[in-house]
Protein backbone atom coordinates (compact mmCIF):
# COMPACT_ATOMS: atom_id res chain seq x y z
CA UNK A 1 0.00 0.00 0.00
CA UNK A 2 1.39 3.38 -1.03
CA UNK A 3 2.28 5.87 1.68
CA UNK A 4 0.26 9.04 1.09
CA UNK A 5 3.10 11.08 2.58
CA UNK A 6 5.12 10.22 -0.49
CA UNK A 7 2.54 11.94 -2.71
CA UNK A 8 2.21 15.65 -1.82
CA UNK A 9 -0.80 16.17 -4.11
CA UNK A 10 -2.71 13.25 -2.61
CA UNK A 11 -1.79 14.35 0.88
CA UNK A 12 -3.06 17.88 0.18
CA UNK A 13 -6.31 16.49 -1.23
CA UNK A 14 -6.80 14.40 1.91
CA UNK A 15 -6.10 17.39 4.15
CA UNK A 16 -8.60 19.48 2.16
CA UNK A 17 -11.24 16.75 2.44
CA UNK A 18 -10.79 16.52 6.20
CA UNK A 19 -10.95 20.30 6.59
CA UNK A 20 -14.03 20.52 4.36
CA UNK A 21 -15.80 17.90 6.48
CA UNK A 22 -14.92 19.79 9.67
CA UNK A 23 -16.39 22.99 8.21
CA UNK A 24 -19.54 21.27 6.95
CA UNK A 25 -20.05 19.63 10.33
CA UNK A 26 -19.66 22.99 12.11
CA UNK A 27 -22.19 24.53 9.72
CA UNK A 28 -24.75 21.84 10.56
CA UNK A 29 -24.50 22.70 14.24
CA UNK A 30 -26.29 25.52 16.02
CA UNK A 31 -24.42 28.15 18.00
CA UNK A 32 -25.58 26.44 21.20
CA UNK A 33 -24.34 23.06 19.98
CA UNK A 34 -20.92 24.46 19.11
CA UNK A 35 -20.63 26.09 22.53
CA UNK A 36 -21.71 22.84 24.21
CA UNK A 37 -19.03 20.99 22.26
CA UNK A 38 -16.34 23.38 23.55
CA UNK A 39 -17.30 22.40 27.10
CA UNK A 40 -17.41 18.70 26.27
CA UNK A 41 -14.06 18.69 24.43
CA UNK A 42 -12.37 20.75 27.13
CA UNK A 43 -13.54 18.51 29.95
CA UNK A 44 -12.52 15.41 28.02
CA UNK A 45 -9.05 16.79 27.27
CA UNK A 46 -8.48 17.54 30.95
CA UNK A 47 -9.63 14.02 31.86
CA UNK A 48 -7.28 12.47 29.29
CA UNK A 49 -4.34 14.60 30.53
CA UNK A 50 -5.10 13.41 34.05
CA UNK A 51 -5.25 9.77 33.00
CA UNK A 52 -2.03 10.15 31.04
CA UNK A 53 -0.19 11.75 33.95
CA UNK A 54 -1.35 9.00 36.33
CA UNK A 55 -0.29 6.33 33.89
CA UNK A 56 3.14 7.88 33.38
CA UNK A 57 3.68 8.22 37.12
CA UNK A 58 2.35 4.74 37.76
CA UNK A 59 -0.02 6.00 40.44
CA UNK A 60 -3.63 5.32 41.34
CA UNK A 61 -3.81 8.46 43.49
CA UNK A 62 -6.00 10.90 41.56
CA UNK A 63 -4.66 13.91 43.48
CA UNK A 64 -1.08 13.04 42.54
CA UNK A 65 -2.21 12.93 38.92
CA UNK A 66 -3.81 16.36 39.14
CA UNK A 67 -0.71 17.81 40.78
CA UNK A 68 1.32 16.58 37.81
CA UNK A 69 -1.16 18.06 35.32
CA UNK A 70 -1.00 21.36 37.21
CA UNK A 71 2.80 21.29 37.15
CA UNK A 72 2.89 20.61 33.41
CA UNK A 73 0.36 23.31 32.54
CA UNK A 74 2.19 25.80 34.73
CA UNK A 75 5.43 25.01 32.94
CA UNK A 76 3.77 25.44 29.56
CA UNK A 77 2.39 28.81 30.62
CA UNK A 78 5.79 30.00 31.77
CA UNK A 79 7.39 28.93 28.50
CA UNK A 80 4.65 30.75 26.60
CA UNK A 81 4.79 33.90 28.75
CA UNK A 82 8.56 34.11 28.42
CA UNK A 83 8.24 34.01 24.63
CA UNK A 84 10.12 30.73 24.36
CA UNK A 85 7.22 28.88 22.75
CA UNK A 86 7.17 28.97 18.96
CA UNK A 87 5.13 26.85 16.59
CA UNK A 88 6.84 27.94 13.41
CA UNK A 89 10.09 26.76 11.92
CA UNK A 90 13.08 28.93 12.85
CA UNK A 91 14.42 31.16 10.09
CA UNK A 92 17.70 29.71 8.79
CA UNK A 93 20.70 31.81 9.71
Amino acid at each position, binding site marked *: MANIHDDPAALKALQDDIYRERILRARRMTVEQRLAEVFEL*SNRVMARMHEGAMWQLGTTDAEVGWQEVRRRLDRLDRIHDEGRFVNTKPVPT
Partner: protein
Amino acid sequence: MTVEELAAAVLDACDSEGVDHMVTGAFATSVYGIPRSTKDVDIVLSLGRGDAISRVALRLEPIVEFKPQVQFDTLTWGRRLVGVARQSPPLKVELFELFDDPFVLAQFQRKRKLFSKQIGRNTWLPTPEDVVVQKLRWGRSKDLDDARDGAAREQHQH
Protein backbone atom coordinates in the same frame (compact mmCIF):
# COMPACT_ATOMS: atom_id res chain seq x y z
CA MET B 1 -15.02 21.53 38.59
CA THR B 2 -15.96 21.51 34.92
CA VAL B 3 -15.17 24.24 32.41
CA GLU B 4 -18.82 25.30 32.35
CA GLU B 5 -18.98 25.49 36.15
CA LEU B 6 -15.91 27.73 36.20
CA ALA B 7 -17.29 29.88 33.37
CA ALA B 8 -20.56 30.27 35.26
CA ALA B 9 -18.68 31.31 38.41
CA VAL B 10 -16.68 33.93 36.49
CA LEU B 11 -19.79 35.36 34.84
CA ASP B 12 -21.61 35.40 38.19
CA ALA B 13 -18.69 37.34 39.68
CA CYS B 14 -18.92 39.91 36.87
CA ASP B 15 -22.66 40.29 37.39
CA SER B 16 -22.30 40.56 41.16
CA GLU B 17 -19.79 43.37 40.71
CA GLY B 18 -21.91 45.07 38.05
CA VAL B 19 -19.15 44.74 35.46
CA ASP B 20 -20.15 44.46 31.81
CA HIS B 21 -18.27 41.63 30.18
CA MET B 22 -17.73 39.69 26.98
CA VAL B 23 -16.54 36.10 26.63
CA THR B 24 -13.61 35.76 24.27
CA GLY B 25 -10.85 33.24 23.54
CA ALA B 26 -11.67 29.70 22.43
CA PHE B 27 -15.33 30.08 23.40
CA ALA B 28 -15.87 32.95 20.96
CA THR B 29 -13.85 31.42 18.15
CA SER B 30 -15.48 28.02 18.55
CA VAL B 31 -19.00 29.37 18.61
CA TYR B 32 -18.41 30.93 15.21
CA GLY B 33 -15.87 28.51 13.78
CA ILE B 34 -14.90 24.93 14.55
CA PRO B 35 -15.36 23.84 18.19
CA ARG B 36 -12.09 23.08 19.95
CA SER B 37 -11.00 22.42 23.49
CA THR B 38 -9.61 25.05 25.83
CA LYS B 39 -8.14 25.22 29.30
CA ASP B 40 -8.89 28.93 29.68
CA VAL B 41 -11.96 30.95 30.51
CA ASP B 42 -11.18 34.34 28.96
CA ILE B 43 -13.36 37.33 29.79
CA VAL B 44 -13.05 40.95 28.69
CA LEU B 45 -14.26 43.41 31.32
CA SER B 46 -15.55 46.91 30.70
CA LEU B 47 -13.86 49.98 32.09
CA GLY B 48 -16.33 50.71 34.84
CA ARG B 49 -16.15 52.35 38.22
CA GLY B 50 -13.05 51.51 40.21
CA ASP B 51 -10.78 48.66 39.26
CA ALA B 52 -13.03 46.08 37.58
CA ILE B 53 -10.31 43.43 37.34
CA SER B 54 -9.47 43.60 41.04
CA ARG B 55 -13.10 43.52 42.12
CA VAL B 56 -13.98 40.50 39.98
CA ALA B 57 -10.77 38.73 41.04
CA LEU B 58 -11.53 39.33 44.70
CA ARG B 59 -15.00 37.88 44.22
CA LEU B 60 -13.43 34.76 42.62
CA GLU B 61 -10.65 34.40 45.19
CA PRO B 62 -12.26 31.39 46.99
CA ILE B 63 -12.12 29.31 43.82
CA VAL B 64 -9.35 30.91 41.71
CA GLU B 65 -5.79 31.70 42.76
CA PHE B 66 -4.71 34.81 40.85
CA LYS B 67 -1.16 35.95 40.25
CA PRO B 68 -0.32 38.95 42.42
CA GLN B 69 0.45 41.32 39.56
CA VAL B 70 -1.73 42.54 36.70
CA GLN B 71 0.20 41.98 33.48
CA PHE B 72 0.20 44.14 30.40
CA ASP B 73 -0.31 42.27 27.16
CA THR B 74 0.80 44.48 24.31
CA LEU B 75 -0.72 42.23 21.65
CA THR B 76 -4.20 41.39 22.85
CA TRP B 77 -6.38 43.23 25.32
CA GLY B 78 -4.06 45.31 27.46
CA ARG B 79 -4.28 44.78 31.22
CA ARG B 80 -4.62 41.12 32.12
CA LEU B 81 -4.93 39.19 35.35
CA VAL B 82 -4.30 35.46 35.22
CA GLY B 83 -5.48 32.87 37.71
CA VAL B 84 -5.80 29.12 38.06
CA ALA B 85 -8.71 27.21 39.59
CA ARG B 86 -7.91 26.04 43.09
CA GLN B 87 -9.81 22.80 42.51
CA SER B 88 -8.83 20.24 39.91
CA PRO B 89 -8.66 20.38 36.99
CA PRO B 90 -6.30 23.36 36.95
CA LEU B 91 -8.30 25.44 34.50
CA LYS B 92 -7.10 28.98 33.85
CA VAL B 93 -9.05 32.22 34.15
CA GLU B 94 -7.86 35.31 32.30
CA LEU B 95 -9.50 38.63 33.03
CA PHE B 96 -8.76 41.32 30.46
CA GLU B 97 -9.62 44.97 30.76
CA LEU B 98 -10.85 46.97 27.81
CA PHE B 99 -8.35 49.53 26.63
CA ASP B 100 -8.61 52.70 24.64
CA ASP B 101 -8.63 51.27 21.13
CA PRO B 102 -11.43 52.31 18.73
CA PHE B 103 -11.92 48.82 17.31
CA VAL B 104 -11.84 47.10 20.70
CA LEU B 105 -14.34 49.56 22.16
CA ALA B 106 -16.66 49.18 19.14
CA GLN B 107 -16.34 45.41 19.33
CA PHE B 108 -17.42 45.50 22.96
CA GLN B 109 -20.39 47.72 22.12
CA ARG B 110 -21.49 45.32 19.36
CA LYS B 111 -21.38 42.22 21.59
CA ARG B 112 -24.28 39.78 21.34
CA LYS B 113 -26.26 37.98 24.01
CA LEU B 114 -26.28 34.20 23.96
CA PHE B 115 -28.03 31.81 26.30
CA SER B 116 -25.99 28.78 27.27
CA LYS B 117 -27.84 25.78 28.63
CA GLN B 118 -24.60 24.41 30.09
CA ILE B 119 -23.79 27.60 31.97
CA GLY B 120 -27.47 28.13 32.73
CA ARG B 121 -27.43 31.80 31.97
CA ASN B 122 -27.06 34.48 29.34
CA THR B 123 -23.62 35.51 28.32
CA TRP B 124 -22.13 37.99 25.86
CA LEU B 125 -19.96 37.28 22.85
CA PRO B 126 -18.37 39.43 20.14
CA THR B 127 -19.98 39.30 16.71
CA PRO B 128 -18.52 36.73 14.27
CA GLU B 129 -17.17 39.51 12.07
CA ASP B 130 -15.41 41.12 15.02
CA VAL B 131 -13.86 37.81 16.04
CA VAL B 132 -12.38 37.43 12.54
CA VAL B 133 -11.09 41.02 12.45
CA GLN B 134 -9.63 40.70 15.94
CA LYS B 135 -7.85 37.51 14.98
CA LEU B 136 -6.42 39.09 11.84
CA ARG B 137 -5.19 42.03 13.89
CA TRP B 138 -3.36 39.75 16.32
CA GLY B 139 -2.01 37.70 13.44
CA ARG B 140 -0.38 34.84 15.32
CA SER B 141 -0.42 31.46 13.62
CA LYS B 142 -3.31 30.15 15.75
CA ASP B 143 -5.22 33.43 15.30
CA LEU B 144 -4.99 33.14 11.53
CA ASP B 145 -6.29 29.56 11.71
CA ASP B 146 -9.21 30.74 13.86
CA ALA B 147 -9.96 33.59 11.42
CA ARG B 148 -9.93 31.17 8.49
CA ASP B 149 -12.21 28.72 10.29
CA GLY B 150 -14.65 31.43 11.31
CA ALA B 151 -14.81 32.89 7.82
CA ALA B 152 -15.24 29.46 6.24
CA ARG B 153 -17.96 28.41 8.65
CA GLU B 154 -19.92 31.66 8.19
CA GLN B 155 -19.60 31.81 4.41
CA HIS B 156 -22.70 29.77 3.55
CA GLN B 157 -25.02 32.11 5.46
CA HIS B 158 -24.45 35.06 3.10
